């Protein structure tokens, strides 16, 4: 008999905790629309048993996984099914296609595109260009590309915001992410407005790289890991030397850096994780602890439907965004049933996934139509593209809504100290 008895689980991503109950498969949005995908139980812990014996059991169908993590949310035994699948994909790399390299390198694409934004936006929107992309690159022709901004957020920040930030007594660093930088700087501007009103100076990290989520989804894990290490170094400096916690406005970037860096890429982020938060959570906590106060514009009126993005659901943080929205007196909030919109970052851009992507989102689109809101609020940028394209309803990040609803001057006065 062994000298000691193993009384705790020891496998990666709680693999051996699986009871084989199949509950995860009930909640997988992909398995619900296509039988080509065997579902999380089979692709995850069941398949893993075989893959551990012989890698030849790896199944190409695993690339159909969206990495939405809804299986993990449903699993009663805390098996990190999505992580098991991601790691299996990582261990069976395929040479990424040119299209996937382009879609994945959000910052390279962004840098090129913002410098020629009007031309790029125009060409990306043109029918013949879409047809060529469809045929040669495999980017679905139905997709509208998110428009590129003509000025990067970082450029705007350096010209218009950087000088005044040191004057505040409290400070945060802002990980803006590729989307704010290249496609939608307004969200970054809104974040600066809100945090400044609350008495916080907002700073950029010494070096910010794309969080790597798109690289991971497209099989470029080595590059993702290098970028992740760079981000962790900048964040360590911000936390330890500058004493500035880091906030973000993207649920997916946050989730990737807090959880997937460790679980999938093997980056040690333990010292950073608790100092890295979504702005909605950070602000909620300040209010809950009585550290800041908000004053609202009495004329503000808005009817909003909140959509829980998959990674927001996985983090368990949607409550912070909805609680924050509920504080706004003129805001009527409808909470949509939490379900996947189908885009999953770059997944829905690929021709081979377009149909499934839209089928997955159909339930959400229908719910939005029925709720008939002025705006949909969500914490994820790719959900924004998908929902705007599929329903025509404009989508805002809760921070942008907060920026519109605040009486900024009054809030500033309330938080002067």
């Amino acid at each position: 008999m062994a000298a000691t008895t193993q009384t705790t689980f020891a496998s990666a991503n709680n693999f051996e905790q699986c009871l084989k109950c199949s509950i995860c498969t009930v909640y997988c949005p992909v398995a619900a629309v296509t039988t080509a995908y065997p579902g999380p139980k089979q692709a995850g812990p069941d398949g893993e048993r075989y893959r551990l014996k012989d890698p030849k059991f790896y199944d190409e169908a695993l690339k159909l996984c969206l990495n939405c993590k809804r299986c993990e949310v449903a699993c009663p035994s805390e098996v990190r099914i999505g992580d098991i699948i991601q790691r299996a994909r990582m261990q069976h790399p395929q040479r990424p296609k040119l299209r996937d390299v382009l879609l994945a390198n959000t910052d390279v694409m962004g840098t090129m595109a913002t410098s020629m934004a009007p031309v790029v936006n125009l060409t990306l929107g043109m029918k013949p260009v879409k047809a060529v992309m469809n045929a040669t690159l495999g980017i679905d022709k139905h997709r509208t590309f998110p428009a590129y901004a003509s000025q990067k957020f970082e450029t705007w920040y350096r010209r218009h915001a950087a000088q005044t930030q040191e004057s505040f007594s409290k400070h945060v660093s802002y990980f803006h992410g590729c989307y704010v930088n290249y496609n939608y700087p307004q969200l970054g501007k809104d974040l600066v407005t809100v945090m400044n009103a609350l008495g916080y100076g907002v700073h950029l990290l010494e070096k910010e790289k794309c969080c790597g989520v798109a690289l991971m989804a497209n099989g470029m894990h080595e590059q993702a890991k290098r970028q992740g290490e760079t981000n962790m170094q900048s964040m360590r400096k911000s936390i330890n030397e500058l004493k500035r916690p880091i906030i973000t406005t993207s649920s997916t970037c946050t989730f990737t850096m807090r959880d997937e860096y460790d679980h999938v890429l093997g980056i040690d982020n333990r010292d950073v994780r608790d100092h890295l938060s979504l702005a909605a959570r950070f602000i909620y906590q300040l209010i809950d602890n009585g550290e800041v106060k908000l004053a609202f514009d009495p004329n503000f009126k808005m009817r909003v439907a909140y959509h829980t993005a998959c990674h927001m659901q996985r983090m368990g943080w949607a409550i912070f965004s909805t609680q924050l929205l509920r504080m706004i007196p003129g805001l009527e909030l409808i909470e949509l049933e939490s379900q996947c919109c189908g885009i999953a970052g770059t997944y829905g851009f690929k021709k081979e996934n377009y149909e499934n992507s839209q089928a997955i989102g159909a339930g959400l689109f229908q719910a939005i139509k029925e709720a008939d809101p002025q705006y949909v609020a969500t914490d994820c940028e790719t959900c924004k593209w998908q929902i705007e394209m599929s329903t025509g309803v404009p989508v805002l990040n809760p921070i942008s809504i907060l920026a519109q609803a605040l009486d900024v001057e009054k809030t500033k006065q309330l938080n002067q100290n």
Partner: protein
Amino acid sequence: MKFDTIIIGGGLSGLTCGIALSQKGQRVAIVAGGQNSLHFNAGSMELLGNVDGEEIAHPVEAAQRLQPNHPYRKVGIDHLEELAQEAKTLLDKAGLTMSGNAKENHWRITPIGVTKPAWLTLEGLATVASSQLPWKAVTLVELEGFIDSPLQFVETNLAAQGVQVKVARIAPAVLTQARRSASEMRATSLAKILRNHQALASLAAEINQVTTADELVLMPMFLGLDDDALAALQAQVKPRLAFLPTLPPMVPGVRIATALQHYFKMLGGTYLLGDKVVDGLIEDNTMRHITTAKLQDVLLKADNFVLATGSFMSGGVVADFTRIYEPVFGLDVEAPANRADWTLAEVMDDQPYMSCGVATDDTLHALKEGKAVKNLFAIGSVLSGHNAAVQGDGEGVDMLTALAVAHRITNRQ
């Protein structure tokens, strides 16, 4: 973050309590660490099916004979009928039409084809008035490749009761694609395909081909997850069609879980799915706050807390090599001290560990170091004092203790 009541555990008891409190206007949060054991529910609720080895036809009446530490004693045997009616109304409001009543059991058919007494059964599922099957002959529909129904057991068990069984095999083309993924020919997966009206119509056509109008047809329930597919299929087939539960995850159970979660949220409840309560502060016999794995340093505060974390399978109580314990707050547990006394040799015996659970006072307050925690109640399968598998009272204990506690909380205000 503050609520009126916070419920730990999002299964049948937690949801019932959360709904009852929300109906009374309370601000309620449920923390649910993953989905729950309703997914293993066959679509029936049991109130009391067996006392001292005797199968029960009249549960309310028979409850008088229950052991002194049974949870029903703590909700009041005199209140059982009234609470049971309230539970049925609650299910109805959530959109779950169920037949049955607390005075008189009916008998449900289990996935292996034996009869068991039940209090409520979801419409569409086959039920009978007594343990003796009244049928002379039935036709069982067997779907090619379907892995979630042990039809040979059903056939044998029905035949043992003198029922003549005919098996009608179908292989509808709409499900051909699904058969390619052999491991996923499951009830819940097929139910998603059969949300589609055309798919349903072709299934109906297949059934009509192998049956006649005068037959009673029994079919595994692989449709009707969250839609009206059951009734739609019944309307499209010639024979009388009733459904049998399958192996888990079961469509009727998922349907119940989904409907209750929807209803709770519709009433304004906050359902924190996929988070887990990890700790709590108990001072002066009062729960001050709890913490969760995901909300981390954001403390959850409430006037009242309800523990509804289930039994061993859900981790509400845990057994290791030396002891049986309540893992979140270290509450008192009723369990034999000696490990050898936890189990009996025969698996189907009244296993002592099945009655282990959290100790409570007469009004279902959880005990810690012998003292009642004033604002912490325990409900459902986490409670000690009964064996649901033997006594056939699982869902009854879940729902009735939940309602009793909801009343105590709202009366206290």
